[in-house]
């Protein structure tokens, strides 16, 4: 597989990044990323991974678009209201980069369907808005040995981590249990920042450049603009990853 002349032109400015090059670009083209959630976080993640030239984006969301989503979910327009999110997302992603293959998935991820929905991507990006679904996804990622970029946002704050047991803890080691779901405040800029960081982590992993947030939790406070990176450890008794 080679890059076409038009691909070389499209990716000129990133091909010159140290350690990227045509080989890196081809590795991205061969990659499949599973994006769980096509909302506030999923929007910048999908847009920036598509623009970078990831070959296949499998994007999953069972929701339909509402007007109150549009202060942050930049994959969509007013004309998409009422439509299934991922079907509308496919159009936007294809216009960002026609070279990308989009696989929209409209099912809800459950324990018995995770394997068929997620399949065997190179990496999973968590753009979900609740811990119940995150744990289902984490269980599958651990079992299938797929790296898992986690992010969560609340108000003007957010967090990111890179899970890949046995090298790192899993989501359940660090955040066991769930928190009750509620309508929480969110502006577009928070998922924009956190989602762009998730996209950067994903690209670094796929290209093998830089240092990912393995064994670290990045915590960001948008009100004060404080960033902290804290060490996170495996739970030796974790019900999800300790048996692996």
């Amino acid at each position, binding site marked *: 597989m080679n890059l076409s002349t*038009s691909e070389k*032109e*499209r*990716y*000129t*400015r*990133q091909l*010159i*990044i*140290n350690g*990227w090059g045509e080989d890196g670009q081809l590795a991205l083209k061969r990659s499949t990323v599973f994006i769980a959630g096509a909302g506030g976080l999923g929007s*910048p993640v999908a*847009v*920036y991974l598509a*623009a*970078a*030239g990831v070959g296949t984006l499998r994007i999953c969301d069972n929701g339909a678009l509402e*007007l*109150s989503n*549009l*202060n*942050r979910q*930049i994959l969509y*327009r*007013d004309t998409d209201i009422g439509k299934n999110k991922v079907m509308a997302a496919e159009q936007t992603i294809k*216009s*960002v*980069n*026609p070279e990308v293959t989009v696989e929209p998935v409209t099912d809800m991820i459950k324990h018995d369907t995770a394997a068929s929905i997620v399949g065997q991507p190179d990496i999973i990006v968590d753009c979900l808005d609740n811990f119940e679904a995150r744990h289902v996804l984490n269980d599958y990622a651990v079992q299938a040995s797929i790296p898992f970029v986690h992010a969560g946002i609340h*108000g*003007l704050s957010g967090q990111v981590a890179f899970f890949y047991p046995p090298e790192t803890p899993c989501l359940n080691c660090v955040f066991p249990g769930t928190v009750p779901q509620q*309508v929480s*405040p*969110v*502006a*577009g*800029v*928070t998922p*924009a*920042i956190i*989602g*762009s*960081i998730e*996209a*950067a982590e994903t*690209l*670094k992993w796929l290209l093998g*450049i*830089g*240092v*990912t*947030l393995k064994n*670290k939790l*990045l915590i960001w406070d*948008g*009100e*004060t*603009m404080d*960033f902290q*990176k804290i060490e996170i450890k495996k739970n030796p008794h974790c019900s999800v990853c300790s048996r692996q």
Partner: protein
Amino acid sequence: MTMTDSEKERYHRQMIFDGWGEEVQQKLMNSSVFIAGAGGLGSPVSIYLAVAGIRHIRICDYGMPELSNLNRQILHDDTRIGINKAVSARDTLEKLNPEIKVTAITDKITEENVEEIIRDVDLIVDCLDNFDTRHYINAYAVQKCIPMIHAGVYGMRGQLTMIKFPETPCLWCINPGSPPDTMFPIIGATAGVIGSIQALEALKYLGGIGSNLLGKLLVWDGAAMEFQVLPQHRDQNCPVCSRYHQSHEFC
């Protein structure tokens, strides 16, 4: 100006922030922002200010999208190649939020036309890719006491600060002169991180919530995923801002 039911619905999730509400949303809606550059940084900045409900966005770029821009300039797509970037930006932004008004300015910013191009806005956001032009808008921002959010990106790195004369150093104090123009490496996610932080700084300033990076330079290294905040100091002999300080001729 009152909010329509549809605006209340559109902005609902941000209006339920502690201390945001209709009052802060009204402030945002009545604000005008000048965005210098509709490229890698200008894309997330203008997109996220538009969806947040900034009603008056003036966006300026004299260039046209090229295929090699599309790995990061998410305002544009393959169908916009060959039309002006500011015009392309306006089309995208007005689709993302039909409630706002976007003015596209297609001129190249020079020392002579900077006043006519920027005019009276509440805030300037520097999404440029060269320091020559940045210094023209910095001089204007200092002269008119208009706050400016500066950012620059390179590869997987970026920097950002908020300049507000006379409280903070100006851009010349921090980055005197201009490095030679070169074709530098850049990816979309870098512009995404730094541009989104610029948009957040803009919303915090315009809405009067949280604290800003005043006199502090945020430096981000995406390869190592390290963030640093470095204090910045005024150059007492700065050719741009020192004479205003000396004469106490603040606008």
